[in-house]
């Protein structure tokens, strides 16, 4: 059993309410921070923990906090990114829905460290019922003296507000999120200036993911040093993984980053193996933007070592043979799934979500969707596969924000690893309408050590 820091108490009956949460040791980290530590000491503790941003990019949180500009007399803001729209990702929802006070507690400590007197949670508009859960938790925290003026006599004032988005994946990108919070279209800004200098209403701003903020609570409780001992190397602490697709037990799991991908997929503690007794074909382990890997490269790196569920091991081999931890959205495809069709749904997603500011992204995502549609529906040409490759290369790196890259990578990886499946669609358009390409040679080299239990 891996160690749990975030979800340990998530299923205590009544934990959503303040009284139970407090009885279970909640809000201790606020007491510790506000009564015994300076804001800089809190930041120092987070730095020591090695906590990396859980929103996808994995940037060290403590370092981000220390970059925040602090000009005299200018307000600073903390904004919590609860936009969670990357296909495959549903971990923040789980955390907010089951243990909302953990996020509120983390936000108070982080707001203190950063000097944010007005902190916002920007949540995707579709999570409408979670807004009520969060607002209830915030009201309870305030009634019990954890928010408002002069909290615990420390002289620190803080309010937390929940702001709902209205359906736009791009608003998860931090500068688009800030634009949206200002009441505008979610068009990402050109950087620099970075939000740490010029963010919300042109003031210094830190944007952090829900899970990143929640992790601040155990970091303060057990100390940064202890937190850093959990996990391996630069993958410290625990990580929430939302697992979905063709597995027996889809859901949100907290892992300590020392387990192998194979254990994660096949053990009863986590995904419980591939559903319906099928075999594993492919997996996108970190949300739709990260490269898809065939089973053999997923379970073992190109060097033949077991691949582990942490930042370093998942990216081992670069994009040629590796992938990324991303947001922890773990999507599993069984032997009956069609990689072309799956990639098409992702291409459609990115075309739909492109904000349209840069032509490589706006035009390129549309082209990719169209070509993939042709291939999937038996109207593709062999040259289309090269054309697709060419288009994705022209998007990557040529846009204002990383959505362009995020749209290019899944297509690139699908062609890189599953080219013969694409070619088969082109060569046998009729067959491709009636059946899927199947497992072919992508299978895990059987027997798997941790074979699924019958």
């Amino acid at each position, binding site marked *: 059993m891996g160690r749990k820091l975030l979800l340990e108490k998530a299923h205590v009956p009544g934990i959503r309410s303040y009284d139970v949460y407090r009885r279970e040791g909640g809000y201790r980290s606020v007491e510790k921070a506000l009564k015994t530590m300076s804001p800089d000491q809190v930041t120092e503790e987070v730095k020591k923990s090695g906590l990396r941003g859980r929103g996808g990019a994995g940037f060290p949180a403590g370092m981000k906090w220390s970059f925040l500009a602090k000009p005299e007399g200018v307000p600073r803001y903390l904004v919590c990114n609860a936009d*969670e729209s990357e296909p495959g990702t549903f971990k923040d*929802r789980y955390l907010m829905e089951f243990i909302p006070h953990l996020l509120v507690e983390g936000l108070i400590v982080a707001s203190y460290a950063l000097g944010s007197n*007005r902190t916002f949670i920007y949540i995707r508009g579709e999570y409408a*019922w979670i807004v009520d859960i969060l607002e209830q938790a915030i009201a309870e925290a305030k009634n019990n003296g954890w928010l408002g003026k002069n909290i615990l006599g420390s002289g620190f004032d803080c309010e937390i507000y929940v702001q709902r988005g*209205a*359906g736009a994946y791009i608003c998860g990108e931090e500068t688009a999120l800030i634009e949206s919070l200002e*009441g505008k279209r979610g068009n990402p800004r050109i950087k620099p200036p970075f939000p740490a200098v010029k963010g919300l*209403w042109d003031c210094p701003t830190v944007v952090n993911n829900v899970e990143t903020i929640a992790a601040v609570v155990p970091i303060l409780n057990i100390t940064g040093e202890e937190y850093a001992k959990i996990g391996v190397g630069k993958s410290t602490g625990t990580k929430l993984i939302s697992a979905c697709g063709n597995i027996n037990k889809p859901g949100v799991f907290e892992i300590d980053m020392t387990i192998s991908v194979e254990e994660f997929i096949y053990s009863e503690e986590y995904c419980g193996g591939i559903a319906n007794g099928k075999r594993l074909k492919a997996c996108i382990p970190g949300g*739709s933007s990260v490269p898809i890997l065939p089973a053999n490269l997923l379970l073992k790196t190109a060097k033949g070592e077991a691949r582990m569920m942490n930042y370093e091991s998942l990216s081992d081999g670069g994009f040629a043979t590796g992938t990324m931890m991303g947001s922890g959205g773990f*999507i599993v495809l069984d032997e009956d799934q069609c990689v072309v069709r799956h990639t098409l749904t992702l291409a459609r997603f990115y075309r739909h979500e492109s904000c349209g500011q840069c032509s490589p992204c706006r035009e390129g995502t549309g082209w990719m969707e169209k070509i993939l549609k042709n291939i999937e529906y038996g109207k593709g040409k062999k040259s289309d596969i090269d054309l697709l490759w060419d288009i994705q290369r022209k998007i990557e790196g040529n846009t204002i924000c990383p959505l362009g890259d995020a749209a290019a990578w899944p297509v690139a990886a699908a062609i890189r690893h599953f080219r013969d499946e694409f070619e088969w669609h082109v060569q046998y358009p009729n067959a491709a309408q009636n059946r899927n390409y199947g497992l072919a040679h992508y299978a895990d080299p059987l027997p798997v050590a941790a074979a699924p239990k019958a």
Partner: protein
Amino acid sequence: MAQFSAEKLNKVNEIIARYPTGKQKSALIPVLHIAQEEFGGWLSAETMDYVASLLKIEPIEVYEVATFYSMYNLKPVGKYVFEVCQTGPCMLNGSDEIIEYIKNKLGIKVGETTADGLFTLKTVECLGACGYAPMMQLGKHYREHLTKEKIDAIITECERNAVTNN
């Protein structure tokens, strides 16, 4: 012209008070949500102009935003809007069949509303419920692990509610 009730106006003012003075435009997205709920499930030009006047911004600033975000309806929709997710993870779990089933059962295409004005069918992109696929949003809540039987039950439930609410 339709106006907010005193209660909703209070809510709007409470939202504006969250931001620094002069930054009331930040309230636009939340206020448009309230407006859509209050004024028949969609945003008419008249509604958008009203919101502009409330927030003391230009109407064009409201139109820009209303057309950008997918949750705002710019034309009337049915009383119950089925928003079925069709992205990868849901597709892996059979969302295509669910969408087909609803189309046949209601006799409408994606984007259409039934003649009695009761149901609209939309497809949407990933709603953050991939582990509970296939799924759809219905009003404020999600309906997950959809099956044909569940769709039948949801449709019956809506029809029954429509009768009792009238």
